[in-house]
């Protein structure tokens, strides 16, 4: 067992466990904190895959900005605990069955279809650096990049319009 295999296995256990913790904790704040742990382990997976810039973006954008937004909304609305509502009795078992079927299918496909991939060699230094990604984004993928920026602008305007208090006008 090489060190990266051991690291992968430990990280995989942490990732799955924190995802399950996110699901099973009743308090939404704890769910969000588990999700932050999960996103941080995914960032380490990106480092293992040789994508340092993606890993840093994962930590800053996901584990930082997006999860702060989540925690902010949870605490703003006081939505940590739902009061005991009427429940859909069949919903829980159906969800379990669907999720288990999906993971079984995916594992089957992965084991039967991806056996013929070549081993990869280590990337040379500087590969996938922020500079290279920036050059790629601003030259070859300029149009998708600009479309993404317009999408973010639209989302920002939409969020402001929807959360504005319509009653307190004038």
């Amino acid at each position, binding site marked *: 067992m090489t060190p990266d295999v051991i690291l992968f296995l430990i990280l*995989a256990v942490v*990732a799955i466990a924190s995802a399950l913790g996110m699901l099973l904790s009743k308090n939404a704040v704890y769910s969000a904190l588990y*999700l932050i742990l999960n996103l941080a382990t995914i960032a380490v997976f990106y480092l293992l895959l040789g*994508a340092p810039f993606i890993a840093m973006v994962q930590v800053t954008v996901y584990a930082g900005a997006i999860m702060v937004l989540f925690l902010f909304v949870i605490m703003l609305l006081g939505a940590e605990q*739902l009061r005991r509502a009427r429940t859909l009795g069949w919903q829980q078992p159906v*969800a379990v069955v*669907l999720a288990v079927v999906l993971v079984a299918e995916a594992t089957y496909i992965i084991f039967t279809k991806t056996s013929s991939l070549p081993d*990869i060699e280590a990337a040379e230094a500087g*590969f996938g650096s922020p500079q290279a990604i920036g050059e790629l984004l601003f030259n070859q*993928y300029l149009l998708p990049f600009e479309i993404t920026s317009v999408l973010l602008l639209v989302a920002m305007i939409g969020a402001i319009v929807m959360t504005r208090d319509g009653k307190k006008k004038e």
Partner: protein
Amino acid sequence: MIPLSWYLILAAGLFSVGLYGVLSRKNAVGILMGIELMLNAANINLVAFWRYVDSDSIAGQAFAIIVFAVAAAEVAVGLALVISVYRLRKTVAADEIDMLKW
């Protein structure tokens, strides 16, 4: 070296956990968190496939960055919707938001 299929199985597991969360949680914010988990699993797949199949170009990483931006936009709009619904109905439980149900 770690086989590609390990990454794919990990991503499939995370995706399924996220799917279970989306289907079973009652808190609308929790549902959004499940969607985030699913997007992250898809992103692991993107980066893993880039690394193992097409590691000569770095287009896979550019794709992953665009997924980040889309996820950020999705969370902003989704949480704004949750706040807006909370103003109207004083609840974030997804099965109490049934105005469309007749």
